């Protein structure tokens, strides 16, 4: 056995309390900013028209396997430059259980809760704090470290917002980094 990490994505209509998506894509290998809230859809068939936004993506980290503790999470855009007219908005820092982002049904409307401007690449050490807990990304009890197994980050939600000046075609390559400590 070994500790296992996966990125998962919640999507669909918000449900439950605390809110979460009706569906989860486990072990997501693609993160598509697109004009569709279903992460399993092909992005090229759902392009974002300049002046509009992508659907928000409700990404989160999922830990299982063998470990003692997961702690000190950080999340940031760490490399690459987005073009003119593109703004990447992201989850606020989670420095208390009450800070965790509450799931809302993905849409192309600008998500006012995504208060972190992630457009410019920064060092991961300056990234937003990420908290952890058992049960799920939506659950209460988030803390800076956890021994729960399995464990989840808070939602690492992002949305690509555009203006009419955004160039047609693919965006530049950017790198999103999640850093955490494990022992």
């Amino acid at each position, binding site marked *: *056995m*070994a*500790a*296992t*990490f*996966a*990125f998962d994505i919640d999507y669909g209509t918000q449900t439950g309390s605390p809110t979460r998506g009706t569906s989860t894509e486990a*072990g997501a*290998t*693609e*993160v*598509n*900013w*697109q004009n569709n809230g279903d992460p399993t859809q092909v*992005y090229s068939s759902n392009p974002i028209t300049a002046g509009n936004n*992508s659907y928000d993506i409700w990404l989160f*980290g999922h830990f299982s*396997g*063998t*470990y*003692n*503790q997961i*702690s*000190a999470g950080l999340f940031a855009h*760490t*490399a*690459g430059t987005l073009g003119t007219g593109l703004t990447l908005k992201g989850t606020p820092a989670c420095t208390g259980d009450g800070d965790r982002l509450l799931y809302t049904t993905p849409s192309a409307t600008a998500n006012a809760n995504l208060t972190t401007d992630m457009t410019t690449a920064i060092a*991961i050490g300056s990234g937003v704090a990420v908290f952890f807990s058992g049960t799920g990304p939506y659950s209460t009890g988030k803390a800076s470290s956890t021994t729960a*197994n399995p464990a989840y980050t808070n939602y690492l939600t992002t949305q*690509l917002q555009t203006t009419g000046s955004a160039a047609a*075609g*693919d*965006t*530049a*390559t*950017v*790198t*999103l*980094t*999640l*850093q*955490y*400590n*494990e*022992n």
Partner: protein
Amino acid sequence: MSSIHNNKKLYLKWLFSAYFDNGKVIHQTSRDTSSIDPDKRSTFFDVLEYEKNAKLYLFELHNRETGESCTVNLNTGEFKINNSSYFSIADQNFIPCNSLRLIYFRETKVESTVNSGIVTDENFYINRYFIGWQTNDQNGNNIQKTISVK
């Protein structure tokens, strides 16, 4: 292996050994699995459990590839790299009011390269290994000293 992401297994270049004052030594293997709770816990869990009944006095990282080592002595606060001492609490201007407690963790990164909304590559790796100690000074302030290796 310490971690798996999308079938990529992390390679543990530095393995630890934990030495207790009753002679017990716990060695981390490349599988990094607890002997107490092998389905959910890593070897470090065993160290913390054993420490409840015996004093941990030395913690060593050993590089499997180069044979290099670094240690932290929890009796003296001394760090050694390849048996050369370079730091101890004797160098500090404070008196610890509690014993030194071990710090050990691996800084891990998952880097997703996104191109036009598509993840084109994922780097998943241990960036640094940290060992050290923490204690409290006379005013109750937490004092930490760590070193890291790549």
